[in-house]
């Protein structure tokens, strides 16, 4: 049926070459996935370091290590790096790259050279942002609101804007590549409704990437031209409207939130089935809810602007649409939960990450309704309530799933098993550390502590100290995998084809997969998630 491990196993993609050139200029989707994994890990720790400093500084209401200006630069760096250089590329560019061709039975993406180019563009863009950071920082916040960013900011807005602008091309090209790949490279018999839900979700993400990112490009271009050439576009002195900037920015940035979280949904569907050993509950409903979220995501951007001078009527329309988008999200949560029913649930580290995700995502989603409700948002917007809400979704949701995916597919990517116990401990630490960090922030927001505040009224100190304590747990939990995963590269047990006993084409080829993925093109005759696995491709040690 497919390429099983044979007497003389084909060379894996890792052994395809050992020179730097073979890594940096290889068009192999798996190699590029590894390049992304390494580079976004670096960005994650830069952004994380900024977050750590921010939490440290907020231990005291009066500030004790940073000036106001330094603090503002820190949260900008945290936002810019985490949003554009970690969250957006995280799951799609690493796991999407690695898995999509394999999951649909293809040898590579449709445009391998474009894929390599995306990575180089991404790194080049990162250089601009790091440069902005090194030569003195940017103090606009990640939103670059006009007219502050165009006329008043004393930071290095230009290199930062250029960096984000360039990274957009990487996002667009990756999205384009995925869309074409899913349409055109599916193996014989791999119909749309036999695709793993991972592919559906990444496909929906790609649509958002392709349609939303160019609007950001234009917006940043206008900011750039206003700052460099003095061409006012949002300048109130000329009758320009700063709210127009916000419309254009959020037309991109709200859908971008779904670029960040849809891939987490993608991973969830894989994890829940693999560790429940059961067919997913409501396959089509989950598939279509991904597309619905991608589409509806474009209809709600105005909910960021309820108090920004937007029309009240338009605000109400955006509000009701924002409530609507909760429905497909809730459906997914119900279906993942129902997938466990009548299954054989095991609690390996990836599953713990997945269960943690449901908990954090549900809280994040429900608090989203508070800020989508116009009348409530007037008080909550721009406070720590919003900060907590989106960190629950972005960090609690996406980052948990990113780590879940990393643990789940690590054996496939490297051929080695990581030590199980540290993995489980880290999953638990992330969940509880996260709750401790961000739960107090909901209360802070409710009490009226505005976001981006370096100095704050002293009565907020206790809650801020709790939050910082949680952050220190998170710092440890996010760093620990670096060590035990690195250890496993050399000393880990060999993984074999299918260490989890999971379904899916990627578990039918050797770990790490050969350069060509499949010796012969697989012909798919089964539905997605055919649990319990009938003709068991059981986990077995390969005989090397």
């Amino acid at each position: 049926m497919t390429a099983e491990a044979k007497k003389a196993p084909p060379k894996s993609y890792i052994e395809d070459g050992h020179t730097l050139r073979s890594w940096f200029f290889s068009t192999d989707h798996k190699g590029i996935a590894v390049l992304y994994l390494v580079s976004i890990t670096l960005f994650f720790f830069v952004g994380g370091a900024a977050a750590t400093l921010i939490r440290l500084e907020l231990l005291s209401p009066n500030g004790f290590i940073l000036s106001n200006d330094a603090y503002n630069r820190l949260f900008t760096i945290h936002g810019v790096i985490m949003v554009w250089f970690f969250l957006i590329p995280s799951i799609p560019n690493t796991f999407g790259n690695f898995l999509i061709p394999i999951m649909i039975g293809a040898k590579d993406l449709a445009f391998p050279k474009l894929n390599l180019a995306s990575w180089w563009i991404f790194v080049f863009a990162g250089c601009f942002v790091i440069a902005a950071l090194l030569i003195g920082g940017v103090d606009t916040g990640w939103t670059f609101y006009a007219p502050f960013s165009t006329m008043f900011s004393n930071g290095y807005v230009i290199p930062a804007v250029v960096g984000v602008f360039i990274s957009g091309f990487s996002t667009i090209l990756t999205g384009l590549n995925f869309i074409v790949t899913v349409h055109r490279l599916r193996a014989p018999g791999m119909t749309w409704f036999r695709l793993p839900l991972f592919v559906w979700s990444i496909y929906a993400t790609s649509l958002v990437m392709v349609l939303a990112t160019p609007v950001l490009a234009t917006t940043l271009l206008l900011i750039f031209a206003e700052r460099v050439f003095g061409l006012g576009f949002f300048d109130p002195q000329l009758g320009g409207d700063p709210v127009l900037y916000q419309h254009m920015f959020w037309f991109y940035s709200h859908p971008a939130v779904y670029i960040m979280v849809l891939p987490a949904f993608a991973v969830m569907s894989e994890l829940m089935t693999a560790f429940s050993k059961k067919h997913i509950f409501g396959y089509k409903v989950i598939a279509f809810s991904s597309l619905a979220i991608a589409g509806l995501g474009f209809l709600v951007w105005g909910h960021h602007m309820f108090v920004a001078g937007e029309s009240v009527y338009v605000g109400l329309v955006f509000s009701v649409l924002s409530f609507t988008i909760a429905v497909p999200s809730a459906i997914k949560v119900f279906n993942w939960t129902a997938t466990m029913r009548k299954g054989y649930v095991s609690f390996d580290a990836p599953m713990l990450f997945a269960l943690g995700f449901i908990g954090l995502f549900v809280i994040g989603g429900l608090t989203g309704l508070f800020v989508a409700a116009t009348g409530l948002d007037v008080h909550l917007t721009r406070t720590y309530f919003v900060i907590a809400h989106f960190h629950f979704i972005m960090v609690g949701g996406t980052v948990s799933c990113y780590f879940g995916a990393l643990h789940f597919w690590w054996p496939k990517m490297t051929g080695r098993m990581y030590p199980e116990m540290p993995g489980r401990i880290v999953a638990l630490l992330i969940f509880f550390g996260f709750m401790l960090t961000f739960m107090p922030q909901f209360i802070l927001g409710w009490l009226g502590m505005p976001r981006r505040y370096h100095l704050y009224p002293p009565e907020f100190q206790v809650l801020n100290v709790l939050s910082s304590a949680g952050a220190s747990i998170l710092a440890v939990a996010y760093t620990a995998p670096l060590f035990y995963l690195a250890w496993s590269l050399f000393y880990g047990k060999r993984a074999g084809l299918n260490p989890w006993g999971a379904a899916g084409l990627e578990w039918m080829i050797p770990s790490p997969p050969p350069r060509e993925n499949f010796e012969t093109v697989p012909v798919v005759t089964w539905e997605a998630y055919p649990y319990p696995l009938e003709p068991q491709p059981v986990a077995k040690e390969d005989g090397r």
Partner: protein
Amino acid sequence: MPSRLAFVGVWLVLLALLGISMAVTLLELGPWHAALNMILAAASAVLVVWFDMHLRESSGILKLFATGTIIFLLIMFSFGLADWPTR
């Protein structure tokens, strides 16, 4: 694939639409001329996409993507532009 003559025909229609657009503008038809100009532009664009860009002979999925893009542009314009008149 249409004949060469067909493409020339489309070209003539495009020029005619441009002519009408100019006439509408120069005759000062009042507030309607703006809408009319945009409708004529849309008509020309549809002609170019359908014939010159060969969408007519392309697979359904390409047609779907072309329409989809228009829908998302309409979302941007309708929801975005609704803000100013209702403030």
